[in-house]
């Protein structure tokens, strides 16, 4: 079984520690929401997880292999990655962008073999992009583009997915559509680690919450076990009321 195993990963730049002794694991069937304030170290942690950045100490293992030593294409076949910046440099066709998800298998957009074409077709279908497949990417709305990137990640058909704020800057409906796609990916046997800023969304969709504060994981567990107003105060610095799985945010705590 595919697995991401993070053991006491720390990351330092200069004097400051960005990530401090983080340990957790991700397996298929899980949808983990990584929660934390801006600058808590979430993105750096994700980059360490997939070996784009070498951890200062500790190791991130992908299927028992150190992530930073894996060849880029081997790693890409194990974990699909949706980073934050999602502007496209060139306005290619939607279908060609989705086909880039097959890059690690040697696929060439515009000249896909049958296996790749089928995977791309499935991803396009799953993300409801059929009617857009032959549009140029620069003619899409933000929500459509977000789904294109999801489709690109799904086209890899990797067992694990890491997504950094996949719902950023989307309207509520589009946020739900993206999260529904990720939820279905997990239901069909994938495992996902997703950075979210919408707490209610995270609580409703995730099977597990990783609370990150100042580079550390301060809590790791199911929403019902870890969601408390104290934690929200600690992690986000907000006054919040928690009623079961319902979160109401009241405002920022003065410091």
């Amino acid at each position, binding site marked *: 079984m595919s697995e991401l195993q993070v053991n006491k990963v720390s990351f330092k730049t200069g004097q400051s520690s960005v990530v401090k002794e983080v340990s957790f694991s991700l397996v298929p069937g899980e949808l983990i929401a990584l929660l934390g304030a801006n600058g808590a170290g979430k993105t750096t942690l994700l980059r360490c997880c997939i070996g784009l950045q070498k951890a200062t100490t500790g190791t991130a293992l992908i299927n028992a292999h150190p992530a930073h030593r894996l060849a880029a294409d081997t790693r890409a076949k194990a974990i699909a990655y949706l980073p934050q910046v999602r502007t496209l*440099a060139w306005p290619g066709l939607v279908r060609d962008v989705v086909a880039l998800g097959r890059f690690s298998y040697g696929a060439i957009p515009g000249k896909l073999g049958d296996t790749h074409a089928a995977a791309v077709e499935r991803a396009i279908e799953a993300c409801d992009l059929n009617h857009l497949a032959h549009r140029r990417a620069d003619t899409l709305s933000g929500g459509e583009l977000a789904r294109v990137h999801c489709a690109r990640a799904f086209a890899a058909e990797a067992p694990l997915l890491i997504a950094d704020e996949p719902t950023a800057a989307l309207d509520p409906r589009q946020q739900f559509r993206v999260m529904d796609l990720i939820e279905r990916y997990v239901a069909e046997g994938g495992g996902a680690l997703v950075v979210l800023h919408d707490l209610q969304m995270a609580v409703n969709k995730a099977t597990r919450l990783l609370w990150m504060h100042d580079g550390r994981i301060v809590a790791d567990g199911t929403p019902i076990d870890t969601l408390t107003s104290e934690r929200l105060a600690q992690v986000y610095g907000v006054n919040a009321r928690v009623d079961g799985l319902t979160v109401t945010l009241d405002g920022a705590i003065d410091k």
Partner: protein
Amino acid sequence: MNTLSKLQHANNDSSDKGRWLNPILFIACLLALFIACLLGSTALPFERVLAALIGLGEHTDRLVVWSIRLPRALAAFLVGAALGISGAALQGLLRNPLAEPGVLGVSATASLAATFSLYYGFVAISPWILPIAAIAGALFATTLLALAAIRTHSVVTLILIGVGLSSLAAAAMSLLLNLAPNPFSLSDMINWMLGSVANRSFNEIVLAFPFLFIGTAILWMSRRGLTALTLGEEAASGIGLNLKNQRILTVLGAGIATGASVSLAGAIGFVGIVAPHAIRPFVNHDPARTLVPSALLAGLILMLADIGVRIIPTNNELKLGVVAALIGAPAFIWIAMQRRGLHE
């Protein structure tokens, strides 16, 4: 069956638009090459050029075609092709349609290095010194730019660094001109600065060709990664691109190809911008698919421009680089103004 054929259709139609692009451009290049052999101070008729090309006909015709017109046109094509493919590849790597060896100061640095080797007579040691000096200059500039590109993600900064490199190289060139010992070396150096393929023989082409070939081949073989970079560097690494290797290969390929082209013709700017820009819509804006047609189109443009240089009646023959800049610089400004701030 139905879904499969739909799939096949969906799979192929995105490349349909560009299917005839390369054959058409290739035939156009052959035509231009032939026309370049026809025209000149003494226009040769069609059948005499044809006879000379296949080794028949009068001795003087063969001389004119094989020693003067054909090598010159071929040099224009090779230089254009190298600059076109380098421009297309650099644009893919830096994700910016304004990147190009001329604009980024690569050509200027290469021609400075070449002039330097001429000025101090290193060329007397071996004829290979000239292309190697030009390539070293070009590699210096491309490496500097690639390092800057890692540090800054701002494309504007990168172009500014290129402008700085260009200015620095131009200043050093002016210094060499200033100190030129005699009018002869002065005019020689001006040739390098302005760019020209006049009086090129097969000897010079043979010296530059291996490097042109290697540079172009490196760019062609590493083209797939350029498509991945459409997503940005982070996502490109995410889908399995080895970013470091891609940077090295593109910088190396573009440096070698540009340096070799400069050793053949001096600094010729802007063809590397115009050609990929014209090609992109035909290949669905896929950077990998722009490389070959950009090379062919840029080669074609320079051949045509050189024919123009030869037949326009002027006191002194116009320099090819001057004509290329007169066409290319307005295109550069136009493309820059069209940009809608895709990157900051």
